[in-house]
């Protein structure tokens, strides 16, 4: 089937189907990873600049951290990614014990929108920009990081990558990816920065590290 748009592009460029394809110009080398500690420090620094809240916790501290988050942010309803690692940390059970109503991660959009808190992991982290990178699947719905008014990402240091290049090499065949760099923001009215215009108003990132397994 002929395509009139492509045909006209070829006419304008003086090309044909057989015209040679020159190689794409070479891209510069990507940023190199530093030590896990310094990249993590860099990452936490950046997310603080973005008005997000970053913390480093041990698995045991999750319980008390969730407790204060629920109290401080007045959380009644929450939804959680159904992943092995969040299950292992007992996130859903802790929320349950705090009297928070849990909404299934695969509930409909109306119910998701009622949630105060959405808890996800991240698939990758970028230190230079303080970015969380999330894939999507049945267990990891995109709505959890979008519809609730607060987004909490519980991540691990090994998710750090040096640069976008490494992330793309690993993730470019995913059907959906999102880079999250701070909470939702706008400056559309008189250039006043306002957080949480459509997406989450608050972003918390907890870096969970099992110090027993940590080799220095």
């Amino acid at each position, binding site marked *: 089937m002929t395509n009139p*748009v492509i045909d006209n592009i070829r006419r304008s460029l003086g090309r044909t189907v057989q015209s040679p394809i020159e190689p794409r110009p070479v891209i510069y080398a990507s940023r190199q990873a530093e030590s896990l500690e310094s990249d993590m420090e860099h990452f936490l620094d950046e997310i603080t600049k973005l008005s997000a809240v970053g913390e480093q916790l041990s698995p045991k501290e999750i319980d008390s951290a969730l407790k204060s988050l629920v109290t401080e942010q007045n959380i009644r309803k929450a939804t959680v990614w159904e992943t092995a690692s969040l299950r292992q940390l007992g996130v859903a059970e802790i929320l349950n014990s705090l009297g928070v109503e849990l909404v299934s991660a695969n509930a409909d959009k109306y119910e998701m929108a009622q949630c105060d808190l959405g808890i996800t992991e991240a698939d990758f982290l970028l230190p230079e920009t303080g970015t969380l990178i999330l894939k999507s699947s049945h267990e990891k719905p995109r709505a959890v990081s979008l519809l609730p008014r607060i987004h909490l990402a519980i991540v691990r240091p090994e998710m750090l990558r040096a640069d976008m290049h490494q992330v*793309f090499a690993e993730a470019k065949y995913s059907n959906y990816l999102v880079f999250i760099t701070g909470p939702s*923001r706008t400056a559309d009215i008189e250039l006043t920065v306002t957080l949480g215009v459509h997406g989450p108003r608050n972003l918390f990132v907890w870096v969970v590290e099992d110090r027993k397994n940590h080799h220095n």
Partner: protein
Amino acid sequence: MTHEVPTYIGFEEYSERVPASIPSAVQQATNRFVSGRAARVSELPQWEELRQIGSDIRLHTIEHMDVYLTRLEEKVKAAGGHVHWAQTAEDANRIVLQIAREHNVKTAVKSKSMATEEIGLNHALEQAGIQAIETDLGEYIIQLAGTGPSHIIVPAVHLKKEEIAAIFSEKLDMNAPADPIELARIAREVLREKFLNAEMGISGGNFLVAETGTLVMVTNEGNGRMCTTVPDLHVAVVGIDKVIPDWESLTVFLKLLARSATGQKLSTYTQFITGPRCEEGEFGPKEFHLVLLDNGRSNVLKDPVGREVFKCIRCGACANVCPVYKNVGGFAYGWFISGPIGAILSPQMLGTKTARELPYASTLCGACADVCPVKIPIPTILRHLRRRVAQGDAIALPTMPAPIRVTASLASLALTQNWIYRFGTRLLPTLMSVFRRDNWVPSAPYPLSRWTKARPLPPFTAGFRNWWKNVRSAKTKESAR
């Protein structure tokens, strides 16, 4: 914003009656973005290298656009998406309407998109009884206000919070306070309900990655994510010039874009969408349609100088530094895209007859080219288009009246032929003395009157050669002493 394609862009006329509120509001925004950009650029030692690579890749892509678009179509289809080709704006509107009708759509939520502004999609949808709601806060405000965008990144920057509160109060039937945070909260609430109930989400796109058929969208508010995640149907309308080869190339443009646009390292949300959701029951649209918009772009490719305009990644940095834009604002440029980039894009897409004033809407100071993240030679293209406007070329007929063209040709001859120039310098002071009043020439006769329209000319003396001869001989005498 008017939905019709302009038939004449009266930049000059508009610039003479710019509302007083525009320059100050626009400059508040541009100054903020200029300093933000400068801060980010200074942090990145390889910035110039990135710009060069960005420019090279864009140029390569333009020159191989057929190859990458063919690959893109194949990959989007392989991912389960639908691809539609729209030769004209009418085609694109018809395609989107058709999809909407097939899905019984009553309400569509839209994220900010230059392509849909270009084709006047909102108007086409509304004519067909489908409500199209802009969801970017700035776009939502100007949609309620019924005006157009004054800046590419902050479209409602010309409105004060009191004016926005009045618009909200009237249109939403409520008592809205003049407080930016409260107003944003109100918009969040109103639009949240729209996101949840709309049957269709409409978006543009920042990049199309040919390698995998991926639509890349960059937003800050999260409305882009809402429009492409919550409704079951996602339709993206994207210009064919947005295609890039692969994900490696994307790293370059993502590093350039937000830094140049808003002075952020990355915008809050960058989404990479490859087809519809792939698992049954996964959250996300069931259907994905990509409408590839030509609307005259493939014709612009004929011109090897002018086509570099398609390197543009729509950051708006050129407008932020432009002394002309800063004083007239976005409306003056008459179409969906403003600033220096609009001044070189609109004349090529609408024709120099319609947009013949735009190539002159510049001082040729070159600040735009200095900040352009993909090194578009905007002043060169402006001069190229001025020549097209004045003299015409293989693409367009001249629009200047014959006497002016003849005068310009004579001037160009005189400035390149030494003897004519010398003769002219002797003749002109005598000729000009007729029009001289004291020490000025207040108005020259037609066709030279264009030059004295805005200010008087000093009398022509052209004494440089004589002056130089005297200086040189004086110097020779001095050194001989």
